[in-house]
């Protein structure tokens, strides 16, 4: 989701019998729900998978600031401006905690940023869609942060201690974002003009399918899921998470008085879940490949910010070094 398609580098999941004593001890801890900490022994592939997953997750928080920034300077009143700015700032904070958690595994923020800028490490596909109207500030909070929460609530129980603790902290703020986003839409639907109501519906139409794609491909098309599940780096399958998200979102949608662009969506009494139509995975893979409406702009913005800021970071370091020398 925030980390879609994380490669574990493992072809086949080992059984306990096939493991070395170290690996077995490690797996037994995981099976007993004992958290792995930075100083503990861990298989190299576990370490690399986690770095990849946290790095993707952190990049998503940072790139995710951009579609919201697009309306920050045009927020319609002071209250909404304060809320949106505070939310964007929370996302920057999430990026920071995640980079720090990732650095406990020996990775480095600057190196991971280089990988983002070169396109080697991805961020969530959802942020390659443009924010076209103010209603998108509501929809993004409600659906995008909402989808993130469904995933991240489960990740609070992930096996790596620093990641799990970062998730616990982040989840509290994400639920706040989701409620705030929903309030934006509710206000427009309840008290707004017809034009505003149409703006909300249009926004939901555009974000619905991309939000469902945030959970990643079907389980049958997720070659790395089995290993990630055994390591408890992932705790629920993509399809289960997606179903959970739909089930909790549709009643909220009805309360808004809006619809989603899926004629096949309906409650299935026997399953106790909503049925829904087929997702267009060709769009997902195309966006992942770089063909989303905003891929190029998002990366360019991030790269420019980093490059234009290099002299500032160098100056701060040079100054700190001088101060240290003077103190010595």
């Amino acid at each position, binding site marked *: 989701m925030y980390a879609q398609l994380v490669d574990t580098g493992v072809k086949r999941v080992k059984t306990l019998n096939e493991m070395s004593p170290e690996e077995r001890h490690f797996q037994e801890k995981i099976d007993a729900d004992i958290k792995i900490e930075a100083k503990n022994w861990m298989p190299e592939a576990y370490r690399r998978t986690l770095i990849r997953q946290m790095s993707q997750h952190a990049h998503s928080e940072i790139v995710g600031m951009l579609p919201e920034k697009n309306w920050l300077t045009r927020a*319609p*009143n*002071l209250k909404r401006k304060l809320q949106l700015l505070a939310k*964007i700032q929370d996302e920057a904070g999430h990026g920071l905690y995640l980079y720090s958690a990732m650095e406990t595994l020996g990775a480095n923020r600057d190196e991971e940023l280089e990988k983002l800028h070169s396109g080697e490490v991805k961020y969530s596909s959802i942020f390659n869609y443009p924010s076209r109207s103010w209603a998108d500030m509501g929809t993004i909070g409600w659906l995008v942060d909402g989808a993130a929460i469904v995933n991240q609530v489960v990740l609070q129980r992930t096996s790596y201690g620093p990641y799990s603790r970062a998730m616990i902290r982040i989840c509290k703020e994400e639920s706040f974002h989701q409620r705030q986003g929903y309030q934006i839409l509710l206000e427009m639907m309840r*008290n707004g003009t017809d034009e505003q109501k149409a703006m909300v519906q249009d926004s939901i139409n555009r974000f619905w399918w991309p939000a469902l794609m945030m959970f990643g491909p079907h389980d049958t098309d997720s070659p790395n899921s089995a290993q990630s599940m055994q390591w408890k780096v992932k705790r629920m399958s993509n399809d289960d998470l997606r179903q959970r998200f739909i089930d909790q979102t549709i009643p909220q949608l009805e309360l808004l008085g809006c619809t989603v662009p899926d004629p096949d969506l309906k409650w299935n009494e026997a399953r106790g879940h909503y049925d829904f139509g087929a997702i267009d995975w060709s769009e997902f893979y195309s966006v992942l490949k770089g063909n989303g409406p905003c891929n190029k702009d998002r990366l360019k913005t991030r790269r420019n910010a980093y490059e234009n*800021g290099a002299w*500032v970071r160098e100056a701060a370091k040079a100054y700190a070094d001088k101060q240290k020398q003077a103190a010595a």
Partner: protein
Amino acid sequence: MTTQHALTEYLLRLGDSDIILAQRLCEWIGNAPALEEEMALGNVALDLIGQARSWLEYAAELQGEGRSADDLSFGRNEREYRNLLITEQANGNYADTLARQYLFDAWHYYLLQALCDSKDARIAAIAAKALKEVTYHLRRSSAWVKRLGDGTDESHQKMQQAIDDIWTYSGEMLLADDIDNLLFEAGIAPDSAAIKAQWQAHVSATLEEARLDCPPMDSYMQQGGKQGLHTEQLGFLLAEMQFLPRAYPDAVW
């Protein structure tokens, strides 16, 4: 001019300067040199928007026309805005942004400190709350002036240029006009000369520590913002900021 009218104008100057500077800071979001700076810029902007809201709510009440802080922020034209010219200047590079911020913060800090003793209890209360926030703003921006002034050759050169470029907009806040004088007489606003002396002492000490040359204090200073005569930059800033309420006048957000 009645005291009430002067007071309303004075509050607009305070609130408008805060909201315009905050709007400029918001433009940095997503483009700052580091994640830590995204957060710091966001913090300062949040504080300033909050302060603007307090000043403008008070101004709107004194006007007594049933307007809100939002109406004042999003419904007035360039000519009706009373912000200091320094606050509307474009962001430029990070040194330009920090030079603008530092010179403003140093004034803002001493002003708020003095306003805590205002005879107008509401002003004193708003100032006391804002002073806590602005104490941090000033600490941060002075630290950055020193870091960039005394960092690398490149940052030194950029910081010096930034101070030199913004300097002509730094005098307006220190110069009293009829409104400032009337409110000083009434014990509502402080003596501008005292604020000016404190500002000059802070600025010359900080620039010296940053190994930067302080431009002459008696340089020619641009004025007009407090009377609603702005640089060409403000119209574009307002066009962007006010877009939604102006495009959808009957909407509720």
